[in-house]
């Protein structure tokens, strides 16, 4: 019986092997791809066997560090499954893209991506605070190395930015977890289930601040832009697609259930910040001068929106937030791959040099258009479905909140249309002629296609997703909702 521990162990072991053994570029790529596909296969098995009402599944619970009461306790519920699925998918696509693009010291870069995957799955399946913490902070290490070693020209400053922001959060979270673990009755105990409701306001604040920074939520978004813009495309895809979702996931699956009283009391803070961030990010996105900045700001907006959804503390908000995390992961990963592809092929991502790409590039135009339309939540898309749920939840929370948030739809339309037309339409940019190959070809296309197909599939039948997730997501916020008197 395959448990989720396997999905963590396999990529981790493969990463170590890749780092230690002298693989050639081809061999390393194929091994990494194979491993990531194997993980994806395992996840598909999970999806197939998953019982929506069955609580935690595919888990393990064994002693790990006995003297500290730390247990290797992992499990998968609906929300975890959703996040693990996109992790597996996006990692596979990122590795595929890395193979296609060809990196120096490729075995190391693939190993680090696989390591990130292992840590991420650890975060998404953790049922013990220490396991969670190790995954949450551990994933930063390979990502930072990837950024520092394979990033763009401004990578040094970007790394400093990221470290400066996240180090603070890390420390606070560690303190919060230590408090929860060591004040447990009957000796140290880090089990999440036993920590419910034991924290006070300060612990909540420390924990929340760490997540706010990681997500990121306005006003702690300063590190996002350089990090996303300077990473190589596949790393940006992982970073924005999954790593940032770890923050949103932790809000929903760790913070709110662990601190129901505080979550209910201070929900308004997060709702306010989420609303501001949603509108702020969207508003700023439409004056950026290159594709990746537009997508980065839209990611800030979307993450704020997701957290807003979590803190609505109802079924609509929680399910919608989970769904939105998945959708946004797919969209932003694909967009970053696409924008990165364009940037590397053309030599610049600036709108000044691009434009008119739709002409005689049908595949590129189609993919870009589908992604753009999904990103602006055109009705009927899966992004629309999830945004609709969150906004409906917001409207049920209070009509004015729903009304304010709905303005975001217009902003999203504005910046995405600007991106589409700046890249695809109008006059042809001066660097467009140098694109080689001129259109998306097999290699890069194959990395994008799974993401696009998943989006289309989710658009056709979003209920297939929400049915599996609804029970778990609702359960996660139910105690906080009770505290809030809803």
């Amino acid at each position, binding site marked *: 019986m395959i448990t989720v521990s396997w999905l963590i162990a396999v990529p981790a072991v493969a990463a170590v092997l890749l780092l230690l053994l002298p693989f050639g570029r081809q061999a390393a790529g194929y091994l990494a791809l194979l491993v990531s596909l194997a993980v994806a296969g395992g996840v598909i098995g999970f999806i197939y066997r998953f019982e929506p009402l069955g609580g935690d599944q595919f888990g393990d619970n064994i002693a790990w560090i006995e003297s500290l009461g730390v247990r290797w306790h992992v499990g998968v519920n609906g929300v975890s499954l959703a996040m693990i699925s996109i992790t597996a998918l996006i990692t596979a696509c990122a590795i595929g893209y890395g193979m296609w693009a060809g990196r120096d010291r490729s075995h190391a870069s693939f190993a680090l991506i696989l390591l990130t995957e292992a840590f991420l799955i650890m975060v998404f399946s953790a049922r013990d605070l220490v396991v969670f913490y190790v995954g949450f902070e551990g994933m930063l290490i390979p990502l930072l190395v990837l950024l520092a070693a394979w990033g763009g020209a401004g990578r040094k400053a970007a790394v400093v930015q990221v470290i400066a922001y996240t180090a603070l959060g890390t420390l606070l979270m560690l303190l919060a977890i230590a408090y929860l673990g060591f004040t447990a009755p009957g000796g140290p105990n880090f089990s999440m289930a036993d920590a419910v409701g034991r924290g006070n306001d300060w612990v909540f604040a420390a924990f929340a601040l760490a997540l706010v920074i990681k997500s990121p939520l306005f006003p702690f978004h300063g590190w996002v832009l350089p990090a996303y813009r300077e990473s190589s495309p596949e790393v940006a895809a992982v970073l924005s697609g999954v790593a940032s979702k770890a923050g949103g996931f932790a809000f929903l699956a760790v913070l709110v259930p662990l601190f129901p009283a505080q979550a209910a009391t201070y929900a308004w803070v997060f709702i306010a910040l989420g609303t501001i961030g949603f509108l702020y990010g969207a508003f*700023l996105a439409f004056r950026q001068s290159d594709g990746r900045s537009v997508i980065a*700001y839209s990611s800030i907006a979307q993450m704020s929106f997701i957290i807003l959804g979590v803190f609505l503390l109802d079924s609509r908000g929680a399910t919608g937030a989970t769904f939105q995390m998945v959708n946004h992961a797919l969209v932003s990963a694909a967009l970053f791959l696409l924008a990165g592809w364009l940037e590397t092929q053309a030599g610049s991502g600036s709108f000044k040099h691009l434009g008119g790409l739709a002409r005689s590039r049908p595949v590129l135009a189609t993919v870009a258009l589908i992604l753009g339309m999904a990103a602006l939540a055109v009705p009927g898309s899966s992004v629309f479905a999830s945004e609709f749920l969150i906004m409906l939840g917001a409207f049920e929370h209070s009509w004015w909140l729903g009304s304010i948030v709905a303005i975001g739809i217009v902003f999203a339309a504005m910046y995405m249309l600007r991106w589409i037309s700046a890249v695809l*339409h109008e006059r042809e940019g001066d660097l467009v002629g140098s694109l080689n190959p001129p259109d998306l070809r097999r290699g890069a296309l194959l990395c994008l296609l799974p993401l696009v197909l998943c989006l289309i599939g989710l658009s056709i039948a979003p209920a297939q997703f929400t049915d599996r997730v609804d029970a778990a997501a609702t359960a996660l916020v139910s105690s906080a909702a009770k505290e809030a008197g809803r």
Partner: protein
Amino acid sequence: MTQLVWITLALPLIGVVLLSILGMKLPAKGAGWLASLIMLAAFLCAAVATIMLASRPEGDRQVVEVAWVWLTAGDFSVGLDLWFDELTAVMLLVITGIGFLIHVYSIGYMKDDPQSRRFMAYLNLFVFSMLVLVVSANLVLLLVGWGLVGLSSYLLIGFWHNKPKAIKAAKKAFIMNAIGDVGLALGIFLLFVDLGTVTYSGIFAGASELSETQASIACLLLLVGAVAKSAQLPLHTWLPDAMEGPTPISALIHAATMVTAGVYLIARMNPLFVHAPLVLDLIVIIGVVGLLMSGLIAIVQTDIKRIIAFSTMSQIAYMFVGVGLMAYWTGIFHLFTHAFFKALLFLGAGLVIHALHGEQDIRNMGGLRKQLPKVYFCMMIGALALSGIFPFSGGFSKDAILASGLHVDSPIGWIAYIGGLLGALLTGIYTFRLMFMVFHRRPSPYAEKVIPASVAHHGEGPSSMLWPVYILAVGAAVTGFLQIPGVTHLAFSWLDPIAPDGMVEATVGQDWLTTLFGTLIGLIGIAIAYHLYARESDAPERIRLGRGRLFQHALERRLYWDDLYSWAFERPAMWASAFLSRDIDRTAFRWAPLDGLGQLTAFFGRSFTVIENGIVRMYALVLALGIGALILFLLVRGG
């Protein structure tokens, strides 16, 4: 029967998929015919389904079917629900029928365009979206269709994507419509919060439980959506710009189908709107003001398609008046006839533009009657129908709307009646200004130069472009006979069941009286147009430079709506966004934290370089001092 509707819905989608996948493997013409045949099949299915619906007893013509659940969360669930009744049937016929004709027309119109396959795929996508909009049995699915037609409209307006103006217009249309989507979505949220359901049947059943305030707010929000989609005041500015798209698009989307979705929405939701009488009055007022305003603006426009676009706005405003007066059937009836004559006018205009190699300015036309007689004849039918001249179709439908105003006999009714008649005068003037300037008068130098060669080359146009025009001309001429006051009664009786609370129908006498007035006023308008524009005359120029020149200028600037939006929203938003991202975000959120951290580190660094200077004995000194201090501490503490 419902299977047929499902097939109707599925066919265009299959078309999209086929055209996208086969793509370049198909010859351009083959793609066009494939798409057209699919549309024909869809039309036939819709027609058969309608006949089957008609064959059912009158009280039993409302079919609801759930295909699958699309989205769930807690107690909220949205299905792919189908709603098939008389109104849906009318819309299906219009969409697929006119859609088919325009597909055929497009084969000829786009034959020289290398991207015609993409065009056909978009067209099919549009038809699919529009069908989703009208067959939906719940508001969310309607919103899906609503958004998808906006998307297809965006794609098609911006079809020639190397034209910056086209792309700008497409974006403008999409964003305006997004504002409408927001209104509609908020309306749906409100209804769900109040009633706990989003299905039509649930809303209709619960509508009477709503207070008037609740119902009014919900209706107002729905109206925002309707106004944006139907290009009514104050969200109308996108429609004239949308004429940058290919002409068949203007005919199909921006005249016959999509822009009438607002009317459809109000007619569809009539059991709800009944509970919001103030909103209904507001709709009438929006309609009256809109029809007068756009009629006036149309008189001074010089672009042939823009004139027709403003006329579309004006005609949809009539439909708004109709539904606002609770005479829903008149609105839908006018929608039906309008689809024919307006598509006819657009397609005719497309033939003219085609013959003139893309020239759209009517001042560069003139005298085309001789070279394009068939086009002239067909467009004349359309123009007469548009001007509401008896016995053409527009006359019956428009007069039915105005007669309802007379019948209602309230202040609002009188406003509608008088405003509508004034509008008829304007309609006559601008329509025949167009006709006279294009087809009569002395040919302009440009037309003289271009036309003979063009006609000699391919006649008035390829037959794939001419035949749809002929068919539409027939439609524009005869569809009005569905409802000859006192004789036939089909439009009312067919649509009557859609309004459970009943709807307004004028008496036969009121009808004929209005028809008389309407025709007379229309003829007066035509006469004025003849006087001013049919012959060479300096009258228009005198007006232009005379006492009314400020007014003239205002009209030419479309009453400054675009300038208002530009100055009130677009520019401040652009400036604010640039300011925020360039000055605030970069300094406050990106650099300040890092810079602050850097300053802090540097400060500590500088402070410690005094002792951390690499000289070992200084380290030892610190060590010794530390030991001394430690012992001192222990001593003082008395340990």
